[in-house]
């Protein structure tokens, strides 16, 4: 088994000119950050040497926020203000949250995403998650002694648009430059693949605290290609706790419980579950606020029988992914186990039985995702020379579509399509003289819109009067490398356009994020202007560096005049960069971006020609 290295807390990083990049596993139960140091991925522990950060946030009346173990310890004492498993609420409305009756919070049914009322005010799951990310960012900055240039945050592969967008927003709110959202099983595959130099087709079975993912990947010489992914974003270790909790309530014939007792018993249920991984029988005792003492004992057999349906529930997505990939069990070379919940012996047994082989457990299931994310962050930050890095080809987990007449969902981009992807479809008007069309963007596999997730609605207005069926409206769906969707619509005879980045009906609008950022700075007495200036400077510096490196590689693709224009734009940016006028810096950045547009296209063309001529860049 490979030993994972954990750096001494507070130790400064090895001296190199690398950009500091971190990988963050934002988990339902625990979160953690990792980085690549001297070529090795390492977890960044807290000042006490603890690698994990419990994903628990406690709000105090004065505005103080506690995150991690300290908050976790107060769960049963202060249940309404101590938020655990917030990942379950990300991008979700009140009606979508499972077991809401046994969650001890004051939910507020807000449009889009559910919110939570605490002593410090109403908080959205995005804000709560950003507290966890902020804590990890500070931990990393302390440990690496520098500013983090970029972060990769992992998400369950089966997360939909709204959940992904919410996660990216939380990253921005925590002051992170989010280089990429990376699917958790893919991150695990990177850690495994590079660790073992594996080739062939692998399955990643990832059962976390609140989500289940199954991804099938083809690994070959530096390429990680996701062939199919499936899962259940409402199934995880928490559900096993819940079964034990219900069992305990039933056995002890308890009356309906208050929030404190509920939380206490849930914690005891989890402890019993974890104890059963290494023992045949677990005690489950708790003293309730009424003075009543619950004193039970849960044996393995009972535990397996009350959770059997959950174990079976994971196998449906496994079969579906295999079918989507067009593969049989025999063609799978290995099954990688990820997520703390895969420690349960009945899970290990079920997976071994299904795949007819022992699953792979050589990396710590709690850390493997963060380690893989750190490795990817290191590549995205440009710390690896070309040739030593790898290529990652991921897919969207759920089909994206649009509502058509009669409440039917028309699929535009099918699930398991490799991203980035785009597809356009033409629509027309239904009535004579119709001047507008409204679009409803949905995600899911079902035929009826009512059974799919609603992502956004937008309108195309100003279509000139035409007979029904004469207008030609082209709707384009573009999914980027983070798996996020942008939709645009254009009427071709008149050129009327409309577009939307999919976030309004779930997730937050840009203005909300800015307001929250402002609030948090005001709270921390930080200067908003200084922050904006710092960000634009980093941005400008990055662009200058990238342009310089592009020129040194490919200036031959430009005429002397063209090169001169780019250089002039660079000079202007260099001039404004040290100044304090952030608007001038932004304008200079925009101007340089515009000046390099054609150059960028030519570089891509040249790259493709190089690829086809079979020569690597180094040999030219």
């Amino acid at each position, binding site marked *: 088994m490979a030993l994972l290295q954990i750096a001494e807390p507070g130790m400064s990083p090895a001296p190199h000119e690398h950009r500091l990049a971190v990988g963050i596993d934002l988990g339902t139960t625990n979160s953690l950050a990792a980085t690549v140091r001297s070529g090795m991925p390492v977890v960044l522990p807290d000042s006490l040497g603890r690698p994990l950060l419990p994903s628990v946030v406690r709000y105090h009346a004065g505005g103080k926020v506690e995150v991690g173990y300290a908050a976790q310890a107060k769960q049963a004492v202060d249940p309404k203000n101590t938020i655990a498993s917030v990942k379950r609420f990300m991008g979700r409305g009140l009606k979508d949250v499972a077991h809401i009756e046994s969650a001890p919070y004051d939910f507020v049914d807000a449009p889009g995403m559910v919110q939570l009322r605490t002593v410090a005010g109403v908080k959205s799951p995005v804000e709560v998650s950003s507290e966890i990310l902020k804590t990890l960012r500070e931990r990393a900055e302390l440990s690496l002694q520098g500013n983090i240039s970029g972060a990769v945050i992992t998400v369950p592969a089966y997360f939909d648009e709204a959940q992904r967008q919410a996660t990216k927003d939380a990253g921005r709110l925590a002051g992170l430059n989010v280089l990429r959202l990376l699917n958790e099983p893919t991150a695990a595959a990177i850690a495994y693949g590079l660790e073992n130099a594996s080739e062939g087709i692998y399955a990643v079975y990832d059962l976390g605290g609140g989500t289940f993912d199954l991804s099938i990947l083809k690994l070959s010489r530096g390429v990680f290609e996701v062939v199919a992914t499936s899962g259940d974003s409402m199934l995880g270790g928490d559900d096993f706790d819940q079964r034990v909790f219900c069992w305990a309530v039933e056995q002890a014939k308890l009356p309906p419980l208050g929030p404190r007792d509920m939380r206490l018993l849930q914690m005891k249920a989890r402890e019993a579950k974890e104890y059963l991984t290494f023992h045949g029988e677990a005690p489950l005792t708790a003293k309730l606020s009424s003075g009543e003492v619950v004193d039970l004992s849960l044996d393995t057999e009972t535990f397996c029988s009350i959770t059997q349906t959950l174990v079976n529930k994971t196998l449906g997505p496994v079969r579906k992914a295999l*079918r989507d990939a067009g593969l049989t069990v025999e063609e799978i070379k290995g099954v990688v186990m990820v997520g703390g919940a895969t420690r349960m012996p009945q899970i290990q047994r079920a997976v071994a039985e299904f795949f007819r082989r022992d699953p792979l457990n050589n990396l710590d299931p709690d850390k493997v995702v963060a380690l893989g994310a750190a490795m990817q962050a290191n590549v995205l930050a440009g710390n690896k020379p070309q040739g030593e890095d790898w290529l990652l080809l991921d897919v969207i987990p759920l089909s994206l579509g649009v509502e058509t007449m009669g409440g039917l969902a028309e699929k535009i981009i099918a699930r398991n399509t490799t991203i980035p992807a785009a597809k356009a479809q033409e629509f027309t008007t239904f009535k004579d003289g119709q001047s507008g069309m409204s679009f409803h963007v949905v995600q899911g596999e079902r035929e009826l819109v009512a059974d799919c997730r609603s992502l956004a609605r937008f309108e195309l207005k100003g279509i000139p009067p035409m007979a029904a069926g004469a207008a030609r409206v082209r709707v384009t769906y573009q999914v980027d490398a983070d798996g996020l969707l942008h939709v645009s619509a254009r009427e071709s005879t008149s050129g009327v356009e409309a577009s939307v980045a999919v976030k309004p009906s779930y997730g937050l609008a840009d203005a909300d994020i800015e307001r929250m950022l402002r609030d948090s700075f005001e709270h921390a007495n930080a200067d908003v202007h200084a922050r904006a200036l710092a960000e634009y400077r980093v941005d400008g510096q990055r662009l200058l560096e990238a342009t310089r490196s*592009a020129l040194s590689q490919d200036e031959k693709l430009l005429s002397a005049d063209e090169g001169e224009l780019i250089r002039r734009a660079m000079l202007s940016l260099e001039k404004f960069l040290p100044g304090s006028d952030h608007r001038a810096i932004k304008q200079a950045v925009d101007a340089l*971006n515009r000046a390099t547009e054609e150059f960028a296209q030519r570089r891509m063309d040249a790259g493709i020609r190089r690829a086809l001529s079979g020569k690597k860049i180094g040999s030219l």
Partner: protein
Amino acid sequence: MQSHFELFGLSPAFALDKEALEKAYREIQSQVHPDRFAHAGDAERRASLQWTTRVNEAYRTLKDPVQRAKHILELHGVDVGFETNTQMPTDFLLRQLELREELEAAVHKKDGGLLDALRSTLSGEKLLLENQLAESLDKKKDLEGSTGQVRKLMFLHRLDEEIDSAYEEIE
């Protein structure tokens, strides 16, 4: 616009060297993929997104036999007529009815084994059609004649998707 074949430096043929396609795809992706430009400026990131999207689309089209055949025909200005031409030979339609009855029976009995058998029969029939297409498209260059075969193949692909849903239904 460049054809999908040209993009990968391949000659336009229905009988395709899958390994050569995969190799070209991966090599191009390793040059243009957004992961290569995560730290670059907006212009390069945008260009990278556009190219990767285009390359993924071309790869998806060429990998799929129905879409590949359709693309070849379109390059020659021939419409397959999925929507306009619904005429199919009687014996083919009868065979389709037969296969669909088998599918319904399997669902009714909730028998995964029957679905497996049906799928393997279907794979055989698809392969046969693909070989015929290679003959008529690549060798005989009988474009109009090929359209009927492409539509047949499309039918079989739809049945394949129905088998997928059937598995989900009986689980």
